[in-house]
């Protein structure tokens, strides 16, 4: 197996995630897209760890932990938005800024 194939797969996932983050306006879906990107990163980390020792795996573990925290807080924020605005549409939040 080539290293590149994993990296390319990760790249595809990452760019799909990017697309999702840009296009989706439902907060939960945006978080899912972020999750896609994080996982792409994880694939990279693991793939590289075949070269550079277990450090990559440890990092991936940390990323998973961070991702868990991120989803937790992110979803809590989405719920907050929903509670206040009866919608999970994060694009509408812009109106608040103005």
């Amino acid at each position, binding site marked *: 197996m080539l290293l590149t194939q994993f990296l390319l797969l990760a790249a595809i996932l990452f760019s799909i995630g990017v697309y999702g983050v840009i296009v989706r306006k439902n907060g939960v879906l945006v978080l899912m897209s972020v999750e896609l990107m994080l996982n792409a990163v994880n694939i990279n980390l693991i793939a590289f760890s075949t070269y550079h020792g277990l450090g990559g795996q440890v990092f991936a*573990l940390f990323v*998973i*932990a961070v991702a*868990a*925290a991120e*989803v*937790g807080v992110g*979803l*809590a924020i989405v*719920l907050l938005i929903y509670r206040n605005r009866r919608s999970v549409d994060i694009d509408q939040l812009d109106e608040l800024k103005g």
Partner: protein
Amino acid sequence: MVSSPLSDFLRSYLTVAIFGSLGFILVGLLLFISYLVRPNRPQPQKYLSYESGVDPVGSLWSQSQIRYYIFALLFVMFDVEAVFIFPWATRVEAYGGFGLVEMFVFIGVLLLGLVYAWRKGVLKWA
């Protein structure tokens, strides 16, 4: 036959995958047999949602409570903790007291979260 660690490793997981797919295969098989013999008799009310025999009242969809979310959140956090505990558990002896202290601090910090949630009353309904 010689086999490298790689093939052994992947091979054992191939077995796992085969066995795992059995679930789907079995369901599919049963469904197929059932497809051969079962009747099909449409009746106008058969496809309504069951709701104790009356028309579904109100909106079908509902929101659950945030309580569930907080439980899920707590779970995720502690699950992550467990993930770190497991590797440590296999090597407790090797690390000795130092490892113990490290892990206790780790557990302790997260326990603070539980205590916080407890004190905040999110574990309770009423």
